């Protein structure tokens, strides 16, 4: 399509510029602003009112001189050149290399906004991923094609947890020929965190499988809005066109949403909760919903996102809206962390919505569904007793309550607190049974008698 070039602008405001007296511009069009003696800046048409074109510049408007600039409209939306060669490379949000290697040349390109997957074309995710972490594998099972955020708080070891998942994750019974890639979208990351992830990929030997898109905390907020889209466009290409199993890691969604708010305020949109725009739900959905598995394709996109809950508040709009879109969440708990438990996963608050169809006979183990239900229930009761003991003292608990109280302690100390080491799901489930064997059989209402007979050999050893 023909390009149109225009000189000068009429308004500059925050990251927004407005050009007047131009026709033939398309909604959502990609453009570049050329400056004398400076690198050009990229932008997108946000709205058109007759001959007024409202534009968001990704690198901001600082030092723009009103009459000096020349805007080139490309007649198409922002596109990303895609190729398998991208694997092992590091780019900025525009897809420009940061690793000193040449740019990607390809005859294939994609619109970074993608299109919604037709629900009739989706394949329901069922293949379970073993992460080697008990609280996830046995209690909140992750499956291939799922989107699962980690709700964390400032100072909690969420990055270490992602590191452990990257190190240990494997598909049980997967074909070793399976192609695997990681797409990493860094959104407003601090340099420290960024270096952590780089090291992680180096140490785990996955560096040659990673495509990295980098937007650091010091980079522009407007640009942050395209980082996840560029990352997921790459993920879609690798998964659905090239048959890779892609693990997409986005970090941190909170930074992304802050940028979204910043831009929406600049555009004078009506705010809803806490100043975030009313369209934040739809906007987040346009990111998260790109994960999944589709028919006629060998690959898949599994999405794990870091989300730092502002002030540990799970009802804050960012975790709240995310929880409504993603297929569950892993919650990290500060009090577990303070007690030195790693990974400090809040087993009861966490959830995997796709777990029910990824476990049990033919998937993990026959006893898995009812065993995990029993562990949840007994642990929840144990926590109740702990709260009760805080009021009346542990000694005042009756025998049954004491047993449950102790169960909660043991569950946290042994099951949750596994450290940064691999534990197979098989071992996790067995550990679950051995913890349950401390409870009287009358407490085991969620598991069948057959399973009790099969798995608890030394029943009653601890109770009188």
């Amino acid at each position, binding site marked *: 399509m023909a390009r149109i070039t225009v000189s000068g602008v009429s308004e500059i405001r925050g990251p927004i510029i407005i050009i007047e007296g131009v026709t033939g511009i398309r909604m959502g069009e990609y453009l570049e602003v050329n400056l004398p003696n400076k690198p050009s800046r990229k932008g997108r048409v946000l709205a*058109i009112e007759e001959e007024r074109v409202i534009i968001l510049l990704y690198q901001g408007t600082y030092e723009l001189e009103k009459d000096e600039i020349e805007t080139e409209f490309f007649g198409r939306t922002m596109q990303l050149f895609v190729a398998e060669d991208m694997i092992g490379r590091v780019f900025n949000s525009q897809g420009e290399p940061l690793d000193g290697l040449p740019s990607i040349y390809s005859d294939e390109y994609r619109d970074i906004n993608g299109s919604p*997957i037709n629900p009739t074309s989706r394949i329901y995710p069922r293949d379970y991923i073993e992460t080697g972490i008990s609280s996830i594998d046995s209690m909140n099972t992750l499956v291939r094609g799922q989107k699962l955020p980690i709700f964390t708080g400032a100072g909690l070891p969420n990055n270490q947890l992602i590191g452990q998942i990257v190190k240990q994750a494997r598909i049980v019974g997967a074909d070793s020929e399976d192609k695997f890639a990681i797409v990493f979208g860094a959104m407003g990351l601090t340099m420290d965190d960024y270096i952590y992830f780089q090291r992680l990929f180096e140490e785990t030997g996955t560096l040659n499988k990673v495509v990295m898109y980098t937007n650091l905390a010091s980079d522009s907020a407007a640009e942050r809005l395209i980082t996840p889209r560029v990352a997921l466009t790459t993920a879609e290409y690798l998964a659905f066109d090239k048959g890779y199993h892609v693990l997409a890691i986005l970090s941190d969604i909170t930074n992304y949403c802050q940028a979204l708010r910043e831009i929406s305020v600049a555009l004078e949109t009506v705010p809803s909760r806490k100043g975030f725009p009313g369209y934040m739900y739809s906007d987040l959905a346009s990111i998260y919903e790109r994960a999944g598995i589709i028919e006629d394709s060998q690959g898949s996109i599994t999405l794990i996102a870091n989300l730092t809950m502002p002030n540990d508040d799970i009802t804050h709009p960012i975790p709240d809206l995310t929880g409504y879109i993603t297929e569950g969440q892993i919650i990290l708990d500060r009090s577990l962390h303070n007690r030195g438990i790693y990974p400090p996963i809040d087993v009861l608050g966490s959830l995997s919505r796709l777990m029910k169809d990824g476990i049990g006979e033919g998937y993990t183990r026959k006893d898995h569904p009812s065993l995990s239900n029993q562990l949840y229930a007994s642990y929840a009761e144990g926590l109740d007793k702990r709260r*009760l003991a805080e009021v009346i003292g542990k000694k005042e608990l009756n025998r049954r309550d004491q047993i449950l109280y102790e169960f909660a302690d043991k569950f946290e100390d042994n099951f949750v607190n596994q450290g940064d080491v691999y534990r197979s799901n098989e071992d996790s489930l067995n550990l679950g049974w051995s913890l349950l064997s401390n409870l009287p059989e009358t407490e085991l209402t969620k598991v069948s008698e057959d399973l009790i007979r099969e798995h608890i050999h030394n029943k009653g050893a601890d109770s009188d």
Partner: protein
Amino acid sequence: MPQSTKERARIVTIKGSTVEVRGLSSYRMGEITYVGEERLIGEIIEIERDFATVQVYEPLEGLKINDPVHLTGKSLSAELGPGLLSNIFDGIQRPLEQIKKATSSSFIQRGIHINALDRHKKWQFEPSKDLTKGNLVKGGDVLGFVQETETIKCNILVPPNTNGELLSIQDKGEFKITDPIAELEGSDKKKKELTLMHEWPVRVARPFLKKLPVSEPLVTGQRIIDMFFPITKGGTAAIPGGFGTGKTILQHQLSKWSNADVVVYIGCGERGNEMTEVLREFPKLVDPHTQNPLMDRTLLIANVSNMPVAAREASIYMGITMAEFYRDQGYSVLLTADSTSRWAEALREIAGQLEEMPVEEGYPAYLGARLANFYERAGQVVTLGAPYREGSINITAAVSPPGGDFSEPVTANTKRFVKTFWGLDSNLANRKHFPSINWLNSYSGYIKIIEEWALEANLEDWGRYRQEMFTILQKDDELQHIAELIGSKALPADEQLIILVAEIIKEGFLQQNAFDKIDSFCPIEKQMKMMKLMLLFYNRAEVLIKNGCPISLIISLKTVQILKRMKEDIQNDNIIKMNKIEDYIHTDMEELGSKYGYKV
């Protein structure tokens, strides 16, 4: 009223999901327009002098100023006729399977125009026996029928607002959906051909003869609903709950097991994989009431969260119009919408683009009116036309309150218009107590009506059982507060017994496992029997306690476990086995009784 096309409309502004159009002297509110060269579908939502604002149901990328806009003269309408059931549509009734075939893509592209109903498929039409040439017919009269699926016979109706003398009607035979099957002559002497399908504007409620008071329950097979917070056919219910409280699974359960004739499931701004799950699972499931595949009575609307927000706004109206179409044929229809909060957010987003004055949390002032409008389309009615038919629509709608806070505008406004409230509780969900309906803050406005129905249905104990169980749960709640302070072992034995029985009720009755083959659906007869046994246990144990039997002996009775597990252990077609449990209870209690000097 087809629009003359000599005037040319064109785009002057593009913003968010709306465009502003100029160039015509007059516009009609709600008129469907095709926008741009790709002919994106839109609807006129605001008129100001010679401008009109069009809400577009597809992404606007690529449009430019001065692109042509074509006005159709039609309002946003649903195609109504055989072929809707077992199908899946987007928010503006485009069939998703056909979109996939037509584009050979797994992704939804823009500017696709595909009819909701298949124009090539032939249906076996059978005319009504009592109709002959020369009869006067009116809107709602049954011309004949088509066996739409094994379960549902689709009555072919004279469309509402149409009447006249029947000039001709086809004999039994195969017809395409657009083939004329009858011809009328109206009082204005104009001839009109009728086909198997007709169209209806979705924002207008379809007419009926009169509303009836609701009278019979919608049996859902979900114990806490059927026994504690029942809903009638034609009733409305809201299911509010934070994320992870099991809204969607409860909606799935209602769609699977309710004794409605037809189910309309609207996935409105929710997850793509959830719709896929329905598509994958429902065809394999058997309707417990007819033994046919569940898909035979189900139609789905999927406007998932990343599909255009304007179409999400339309999806609710599309769904209720299709529900009304089956109601008018004389069926009971269950409409489940997941979630109305996403629909309200779509309203908010569009209102924001129009720069309307926001009220609470950015929602427009007409939020309550729109909700009322939607819920008032439920109900039990006498339909138009002959023969006499009654039909009903249930609405059960999920609400997703931000942060699980029920005081937010969508939940608060919804509460004004629904009679039943199933409040989901994240504390219950966290301990995997599902369905997580909180029995203390939920309510049903249909208790009196169901009580009357129960008397006639030989379930005269229902009201009493319900009340007794409720009393136990209520007392338990109070006792839990005390126990939290002093520990339960410091409570007197009769109070400890209440805590024990409440626990049996919570675990053995209120909790229901949607993924268990047996427990997923619980027949009314079994529900009643379960209540009876649990109360029998309580009443007998109470007497023992009064006679000095220690509570610890009652707690350790094997029957406690049996009562908690009978929901999964007793096959639904073998409820007679529950009589054995009744015997156990008597034996256990008598044994204890004889020890403590208490005789039967």
